[in-house]
């Protein structure tokens, strides 16, 4: 019997003094392996490689990312994350903690999280930003592999800007979730749900207008210099298309 895994990955980004971004800390553990890849001028790029399948029941995974003043970082993942049932009965945890200082920029763009049948995962994502930090944060959830009933998935997303909470949302779905999660008020049978949070200081004087894009994503200006793009879709591909369209329309 395999033991449940407790692992933390850490990524720290700071300016390298030559107009680029250095990564003084890039540390993986267990199934979490961050790898530096080719970035662009000024922006460092990291890909999280899942060295093992996971998270399984009982696992405790955590990713901590800090972007210092003036640094720019993009984090993606090599593949979708698959939540699977484990031999341990208790839920798995996946905690993401993101910190961005003034003038720093983080683009957090992982691939989908797939909730496989029988899995039980609680994900928390918390972004703490300084007043003049920039963020693009995507999270996409796919409920079940093709033709499969989903597992239990609860996901909480919290965004703070200058200490003030501008977004705090939790979505619970799958067997055992509070009633109505698949009904006409929440998901209405859609199997892919996702959002992108965009934080830009210039949204404070000039927030984008609220609207629903043609492919179905809503553009929701929050009570702060941030916008939430949110969509539900039949599958991961259509969800990505809807979110990409809304993001591109922000300019």
């Amino acid at each position, binding site marked *: 019997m395999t033991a449940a895994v407790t692992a933390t990955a850490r990524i720290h980004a700071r300016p390298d003094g030559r107009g680029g971004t250095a990564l003084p800390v890039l540390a993986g553990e267990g199934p979490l392996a961050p790898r530096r890849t080719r970035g662009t001028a000024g922006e460092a790029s990291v890909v999280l490689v899942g060295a093992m399948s996971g998270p399984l029941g009982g696992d405790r995974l955590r990713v901590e990312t800090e972007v210092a003043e003036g640094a720019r970082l993009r984090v993606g993942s090599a593949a979708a994350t698959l939540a699977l049932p484990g031999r341990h009965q208790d839920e798995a945890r996946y905690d993401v903690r993101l910190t961005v200082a003034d003038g720093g920029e983080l683009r957090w763009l992982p691939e989908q999280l797939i909730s496989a049948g029988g899995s039980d995962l609680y994900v928390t994502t918390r972004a703490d930003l300084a007043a003049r930090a920039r963020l693009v944060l995507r999270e996409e959830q796919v409920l079940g592999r093709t033709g499969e009933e989903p597992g239990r998935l609860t996901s*909480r997303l919290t965004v703070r800007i200058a200490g003030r909470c501008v977004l705090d949302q939790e*979505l*619970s779905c799958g067997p055992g979730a509070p009633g*109505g999660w*698949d009904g*006409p008020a929440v998901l209405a049978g859609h199997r892919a749900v996702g959002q992108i949070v965009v934080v830009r200081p210039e949204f404070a004087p000039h927030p984008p207008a*609220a609207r629903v894009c043609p492919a179905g994503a809503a553009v*929701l200006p929050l009570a702060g210099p941030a916008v939430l793009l949110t969509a*539900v879709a039949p599958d991961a591909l259509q969800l990505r298309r809807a979110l990409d369209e809304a993001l591109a329309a922000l300019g």
Partner: protein
Amino acid sequence: MSRAALLVLADGRFPAGGHAHSGGAEAAVRAGRITGAGELAEFCRGRLHTTGLVSAALAASAALGMDPAGLDAAADARTPSPALRGAARRLGRQLLRAARATWPSAELDALARDFPKGAHQPVVLGLAARAAGLGAADAAYCSAYESVGGAASATVRLLSLDPLDATGVLARLAPEVDLVVDRAVAAAREALAEGPETLPGASAPLLEILAETHAASPARLFAS
């Protein structure tokens, strides 16, 4: 506390403007997602456990005497749709006017002074309950029940649904309303000790998306 005061506050005839809102039911009917009592029940159940829980916890927290400004900010963070934030503040302003006339209190006066454009309705509801001598569970019951009652009565008008069917939906949800109130009051007590950030944030993506579709729709019967 006076149990009759709870009936006054929870009465659909209390002049707080709720009848002009459908709780997202009109948009769901127009999208073809509510066509009868079965779908209405699932719609209401989803509302109850998401925005209903959040509203009930906010109302219970305000009834316990937490700072309304902190609760109002917590409500903003849990309501990403600007159309729904606007509707919540308009409803809050109307409820505050009615509550101040019914149960005059310094706290309600201060709320009106601090939020000239209206505070989120559940926050006002909690303070109104407090002014009426009611407790946290009373406020949570008003809020949780209202989160489904408005949608049910709107659907009667929108679909010409049999009112008996709509009332049946609400009656069958009663045990879940009890559960949501228990969770809301427990969350409010925790928030009283730990701060408003521990309040529940249960969300319903389609309610948020459809609220924006609805706000942009030129021909609508209900404001939200």
